C-alpha cells in the first residue's frame, strides 16, 4: 500500500522533472542547519544523551506557470538528516500539485497543503494535512497530503471541497529520540479500525468575510489524523523502556468546526471550536478562544508589542487520542521590532489549569543578509511530573518530555 503511494509519487516526480527540462522552471527554497542543545539528561537510559544535536534540512521549491499564470505546477520535496533521532531523519513530498485558476473557481490536484485556523496556541481544527510531529512539537509542520481540491467563490462566500484519497501516518520520535512519550510510538506499524490507508476522506468548507470578521465553517469525514496510543498487552510482559511500544490506532471520524478571526481597533479576536465523533466513547467538543492586543510603537520606538491570551478546552475522554490541552491557559507576548532585519520575538506559556504543568516556548528571528536568517527557539517543560506507569496511558502525556528542555539555534540559507 505504502509502496503504491511512493511509486505514484516517484512517477509524478519524474513527469514533473521531464516537463521541467523542457521549459523554464522557477527554482527557490531554503536549507538550514540546527544546533539543538538539551539542557538535561533524558528521562530514560535508552534515549540519546548527546548535549549538542546538529541537524540539517533542505526544502527546494520548483514552480512552473503557463497560460499566463492560470496553470501552475508546484513541487516541494523535503528532507532532514538528524544526528540524534533516526525517525527525525526523514523525507517527504510537501507539495507536488497542479493548480488551475478559473474565473471564479480554482482546482488543485496532487499533493498539497491546506491550513485552517485562527488561534496561536493550538492548531485545533486544521485537519487536512497530517502533523509531521518530529519536525516540530507544536504541530505546525505538516506532511504533504494527496488531494483533489475545488474552490468556488460566490458573493455568499468561498466554498471548498476536498477529496483526500490517501492517509499519511503521523511521525513520532524513535525509542532513542528525545521529546517522546513515556513509551516510544511504533509509527511503522499502526492499527486501523477496519480500513487501510487508501480509505478516502472528504471535507467541505465555507468561509466568508463580514466586515471586520472572517468566519469559516468546515466538516471533515474520514480518517482522523490523531491516533490514540495503545499499549498492547504482550502476554504479561510489563511495560519497559527496552521493548515496549505504544501502537497508533487510527479511527474514522466526523468533525464539524468553526473558526473566526476579527480585527477591532487594537484587538484581534480568535476562535476555533469543533465537535468530533468517532474517537473515544462519546462525541466531544473542543475550543480555543482568545485575543491578541497590540501596543504600537512602544517605548517611543517603532516596536510593536502584542499581548496574547487564549483559553483551551478539550472534552475528549481517556480512550480518545491524548492531548495535553484539556483545560489550559495560554499567555504570550509578541515583539515586532519593525527594523530593517525584521527582528521578531515571541514567547508563550501554555499552563494546564489542573496539573499546573506548562510548556514554555520562545521563538526569535532576525535576517542576517538578503539570503540568510538566524532563528532561536526554546521549549521548556515546567512542573511536569514523573508518572507511576503501569498499564495503558500515562496520566500526563508530557511526562516523557519532562527532561527534554532545549535551546536551538537555526541558520537558514534561502536560494
Amino acid at each position, binding site marked *: 500500500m505504502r509502496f503504491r503511494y511512493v511509486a505514484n509519487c516517484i512517477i509524478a516526480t519524474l513527469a514533473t522533472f521531464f516537463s521541467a527540462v523542457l521549459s523554464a522552471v522557477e527554482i527557490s527554497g531554503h536549507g538550514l542547519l540546527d544546533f539543538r542543545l538539551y539542557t538535561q539528561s533524558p528521562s530514560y537510559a535508552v534515549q540519546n544523551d548527546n548535549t549538542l544535536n546538529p541537524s540539517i534540512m533542505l526544502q527546494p521549491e520548483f514552480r512552473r506557470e503557463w497560460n499566463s499564470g492560470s496553470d501552475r505546477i508546484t513541487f516541494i520535496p523535503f528532507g532532514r538528516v538528524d544526528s540524534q533521532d533516526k525517525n527525525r531523519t526523514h523525507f517527504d513530498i510537501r507539495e507536488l500539485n497542479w493548480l488551475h485558476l478559473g474565473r471564479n473557481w480554482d482546482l488543485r490536484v496532487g499533493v498539497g*497543503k491546506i491550513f485552517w485556523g485562527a488561534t496561536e496556541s493550538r492548531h485545533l481544527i486544521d485537519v487536512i494535512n497530517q502533523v509531521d510531529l518530529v519536525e516540530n512539537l507544536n504541530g505546525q509542520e505538516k506532511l504533504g497530503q494527496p488531494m483533489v481540491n475545488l474552490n468556488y467563490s460566490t458573493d455568499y462566500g468561498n466554498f471548498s471541497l476536498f477529496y483526500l484519497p490517501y492517509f499519511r501516518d503521523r511521525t513520532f520520535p524513535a525509542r532513542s529520540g528525545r521529546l517522546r512519550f513515556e513509551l516510544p510510538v511504533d509509527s511503522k506499524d499502526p492499527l486501523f479500525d477496519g480500513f487501510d490507508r487508501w480509505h478516502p476522506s472528504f471535507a467541505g468548507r465555507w468561509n466568508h468575510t463580514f466586515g471586520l470578521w472572517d468566519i469559516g465553517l468546515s466538516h471533515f469525514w474520514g480518517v482522523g489524523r490523531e491516533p490514540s496510543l495503545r499499549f498492547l498487552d504482550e502476554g504479561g510482559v510489563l511495560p519497559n523502556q527496552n521493548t515496549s511500544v505504544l501502537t497508533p490506532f487510527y479511527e474514522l471520524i466526523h468533525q464539524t468546526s468553526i473558526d473566526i*478571526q476579527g480585527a477591532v481597533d487594537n484587538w*484581534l479576536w480568535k476562535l476555533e471550536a469543533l465537535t468530533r465523533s468517532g474517537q473515544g466513547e462519546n462525541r466531544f467538543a473542543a475550543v480555543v478562544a482568545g485575543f491578541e492586543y497590540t501596543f504600537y*510603537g512602544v517605548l517611543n520606538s517603532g516596536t510593536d508589542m502584542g499581548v496574547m491570551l487564549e483559553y483551551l478546552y478539550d472534552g475528549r475522554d481517556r480512550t480518545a487520542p491524548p492531548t495535553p490541552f484539556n483545560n489550559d491557559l495560554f499567555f504570550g507576548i509578541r515583539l515586532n521590532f519593525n527594523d*530593517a532585519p525584521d527582528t521578531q520575538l515571541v514567547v508563550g506559556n501554555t499552563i494546564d489549569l489542573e496539573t499546573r504543568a506548562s510548556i514554555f516556548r520562545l521563538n526569535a528571528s532576525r535576517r542576517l543578509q*538578503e539570503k540568510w536568517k538566524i532563528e532561536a527557539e526554546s521549549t521548556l517543560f515546567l512542573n511536569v511530573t514523573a508518572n507511576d506507569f503501569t498499564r495503558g496511558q500515562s496520566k500526563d502525556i508530557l511526562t516523557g518530555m519532562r527532561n527534554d528542555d532545549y535551546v536551538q539555534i537555526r541558520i537558514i540559507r*534561502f*536560494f
Partner: protein
Amino acid sequence: MKNIILIIVSVLLISIDGFAQTPEEKGYAIQAEVNRRDNGFVDSMHEAYMTLRNARGEESTRLFMVKTLEVEGDGDKEIGVFQSPADVRGTAVLTHSHGLEPDDQWLYLPSLKRVKRISTVNKSGPFVGSEFAFEDIASWELEKYTYKYLRDEMLGEYDTFVVENIPAYEYSGYTRQVEWIDKTIYQPRRIDFYDRKNELLKTLIFSDYELHIDRFWKAGKLVMTNHQNGKSTELLRKNYKFRNGFSDRDFSVDALRNIR
C-alpha cells in the same frame, strides 16, 4: 456623476480663484482636481523596488509587486506580494481601504499557507522597516484629510501650489503635511511630514513622472528622508500596467492562498 460634479466644482473654484474663496475651499479644490485626474484608472500593477539606507549608509533592499483595483464609492483594494528579501518571498498583504472607516487588512504567510487578519490601527508604524509609514503607502482618498491652501511657490523649476493636509482619520502619526503640487500635472512634487509634536519629521520627494495610457501621471521615484534619525528610503516604481482586467475575486481573501 461624482466625477462630473467634481470637475464642475473644481473648474468653478479654480476659475474664480481669489474671489470669496477661503484657503480651505481653495486647498480642497486643488486636491479635488488632483483626485479627479487620478481617478478612472480601473486597475493597475507595478513593481516596487525599495532601498533602505541608514545614517551610516548601509543599504538593504526589498522588491514587491503591487496590484490595485479602483472601487466605485469606496477606497481602493490593493495586494502587495514580496519577491525579496528571500525569507519573505511570497508573503502578501491585502488591503481593502475604506476612507475614514477602518481598513480591512490580511497577511498571507506562504510557508504556513495561513491567512491572518491584521489590525489597521497601526497607521504610523514603519512599513517593512522603511521610513515609509503604513499611512504613507496607503491608498489616498480625498476625504482622508482636510485641506488648506497656503501659497503659490516655485519649487526649483516647478510652479506649484502649496497645500496643508491635516489627517481626518484616526491614529495618524502626523499633525499635518505640507504638500507642493505641480500646477501643470496636478501631482505632488514634495511632501513635508510634521510629527505629533508638530516638528518636521520627514520629507518625501517625487520625481521621474511618466504619463501612462495618455492620462495618468505616476512618479517613478519617491525618496523619503527622515530628518530626525538620518535614515532614508528610496522607492522606485517600474513597469506600470493599466487596465489588466482584474476582478474583485483577485483581491479576495481566498485569492491570497493562490498568490505568488
